């Protein structure tokens, strides 16, 4: 096993990787930009190396700086996390050239799967169904309009590179197509360093279902069942769960086999995800393969009991898979909510700033993969994800109840988070009934505003805060004082 690895990422995913490394006795090297000098991942790692100024292109996307940091610290391998360089074939290739193990598939596989069109061709060859759409990248507005006409609106413009909801635009009419194409291309260029886009059919009422796969270097490939990721806004997932409410056991088995076939066709190694769209008639289509650990990997860990980061490290270090397909038996139900620094009352606009205070929910079956702390700065330059709140319970209804409880107990002051919005969403009838399609938020929560049921309590809390200024010594129960405290003698505690 590795003695030391570098984690080429920041935030919660860097901490997630460091966490497993600590358990495995692997030393970790964090990298940081000038915006992240005291970021949580820097404080958690054994070593920390500055890689540049805040701009992602000059730091977390800076291949040279990261390779140099790995060499300077004698890191044997690099874990790329998700986003940033995780699906950059050049980076994987540089690692290969420098004798540093890239914890992920080979650069060739990343390149082929990262080029969505090549990926589609490979899948067609392997007999895996794909969504209707283009098989080439497109730059000419006229050609774009023609293809959209052929597919029929709505269509989806997608970056051939990348993921995470960046560089994607849904277009409903020809008049918006060209501008949307330019915006998507610009966003993709900024996020992935590649502005190529293509177009595919958009399914209005579809499910987004993905299968986790693991493949070692000896030809063994497994799937770890599905994740349902249909609840999205701006093409970005915000709630993920497993198992999906819409898969029958037969369909699950069929899709699991397709996922393994896809991974094998791609020559895949390490952890990856095969994304499918499932339409209303339960037809499924290969969307793309994500050649990295997913944001939502924890729900799979909770139900299968398998630490995916540990599996990534074992595979990268040349170990064969420890399981057979039959030994992977999911249990219970798991839900993940992404906690972003964003304002649900202002169209989810991101909220950078300082976390003035944070209290994480705890309790049986609750896990919070968190990348910030009380007092930490949330920089304007990076993705607004603060943490991923994950629950596991015996059934879906119990998991929903547990997540609502956990959201209630999650305190973040200083930046706005959508815990209230998420609670309303989780308790809504269509979500409870498992009727969440990719258009769920537009359909049911497009103009969500918080209710006013708690307003009276908030006003009373305002007054209580005025009456007990916080800088004064805090009120404490005195263990050696058997005389009742004012708080209690004043008689407002019950009885």
């Amino acid at each position, binding site marked *: 096993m590795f003695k030391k690895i570098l984690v080429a990422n920041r935030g919660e995913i860097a901490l997630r990787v460091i966490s497993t490394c600590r358990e495995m006795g692997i030393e970790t090297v964090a990298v940081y930009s000038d915006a992240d000098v005291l970021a949580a991942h820097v404080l958690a790692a054994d070593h920390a190396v500055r890689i540049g100024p805040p701009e992602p292109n000059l730091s977390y996307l800076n291949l040279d700086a990261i390779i140099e940091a790995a060499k300077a610290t004698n890191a044997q391998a690099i874990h790329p996390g998700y986003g940033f360089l995780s699906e950059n074939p050049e980076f994987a290739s540089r690692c290969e050239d420098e004798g540093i193990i890239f914890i992920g598939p080979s650069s060739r596989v990343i390149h082929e799967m990262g080029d969505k069109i090549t990926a589609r061709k490979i899948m067609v060859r392997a007999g895996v169904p794909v969504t209707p759409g283009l098989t080439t990248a497109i730059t000419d507005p006229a050609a774009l309009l023609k293809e959209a006409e052929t597919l029929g609106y709505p269509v989806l413009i997608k970056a051939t590179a990348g993921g995470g909801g960046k560089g994607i635009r849904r277009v409903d009419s020809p008049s918006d197509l060209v501008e949307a194409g330019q915006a998507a291309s610009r966003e993709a260029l900024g996020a992935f360093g590649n502005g190529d886009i293509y177009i595919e059919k958009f399914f209005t009422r579809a499910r987004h279902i993905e299968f986790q796969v693991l493949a070692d270097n000896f030809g063994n490939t497994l799937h770890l069942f599905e994740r349902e990721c249909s609840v999205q806004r701006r093409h970005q997932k915000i709630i993920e769960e497993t198992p999906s409410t819409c898969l029958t056991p037969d369909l699950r088995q069929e899709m699991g086999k397709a996922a393994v076939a896809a991974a094998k066709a791609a020559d895949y190694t390490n952890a990856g995800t095969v994304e499918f769209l499932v339409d209303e008639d339960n037809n499924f289509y290969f969307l793309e393969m994500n050649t990295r650990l997913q944001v939502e990997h924890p729900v799979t860990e909770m139900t299968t009991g398998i630490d995916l980061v540990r599996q990534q490290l074992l595979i990268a270090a040349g170990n064969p898979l420890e399981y057979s397909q039959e030994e992977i038996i999911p249990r219970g139900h798991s839900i993940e909510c992404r906690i972003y620094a964003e304002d649900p009352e202002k169209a989810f606009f*991101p909220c950078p700033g300082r976390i003035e205070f944070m209290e994480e929910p705890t309790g049986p079956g609750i896990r919070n993969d968190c990348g910030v702390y009380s007092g930490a700065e949330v920089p304007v330059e990076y993705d607004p994800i603060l943490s991923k709140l994950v629950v596991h319970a015996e059934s879906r209804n119990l998991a929903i109840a547990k997540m609502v409880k956990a959201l209630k107990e999650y305190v973040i002051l200083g930046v706005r988070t959508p815990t209230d919005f998420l609670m309303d969403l989780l308790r809504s009838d269509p979500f409870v009934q498992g009727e969440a399609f990719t258009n769920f938020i537009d359909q049911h929560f497009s103009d969500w505003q918080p209710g006013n049921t708690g307003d009276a309590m908030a006003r009373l809390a305002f007054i209580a805060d005025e009456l007990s200024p916080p800088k004064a010594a805090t009120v404490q129960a005195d263990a050696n004082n058997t005389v009742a405290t004012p708080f209690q003698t004043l008689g407002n505690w019950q009885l």
Partner: protein
Amino acid sequence: MEYNLTINDRTDTVHVDITGDNSFEAAVDQDEFEVSFARISDHKIAIQVNGQTFNAHVTRTDGAKVIMIDGRTFTVRDADLAEQTKTSGGKGMATAETEVTPPMPAVVILLAVAPGDRVEQGDPVVTVSAMKMETTLTAPYAGVVTSVNVAEGDKVMPGQILVDIEDQP
């Protein structure tokens, strides 16, 4: 004692009788509340209202307290203070809707206008990006651009006027 407290657009008057160091009685319209409370930390207050216990987490921002109770966030303003601020010439809440300013800290990535340009209401003026999300700010009314105060790549803050537009309907 009386507090006029605003949440979103609604201001309620709360009549308060202090009944002890850590308790008061409050009345809002017909509703009456027996309240006792204890400060647990700088940011946390335990409160009991009519026999029901809950915890409030509080932080103070400019002119308001942001209060979290059971996962819900409330921005509560003292309407009397807000009134003073407004009448003494401070920037009110409504200014944002008549000025080209970002809703959050952001970076300018695209300038769509130059001084002298004629714009109609709703025309794109500046595109900013925060945490990798792009937002296009539009002209709040028809007019002529008199100055552009930022360059592409600049970091900008809410309240900062990025483009001046002279009202010419």
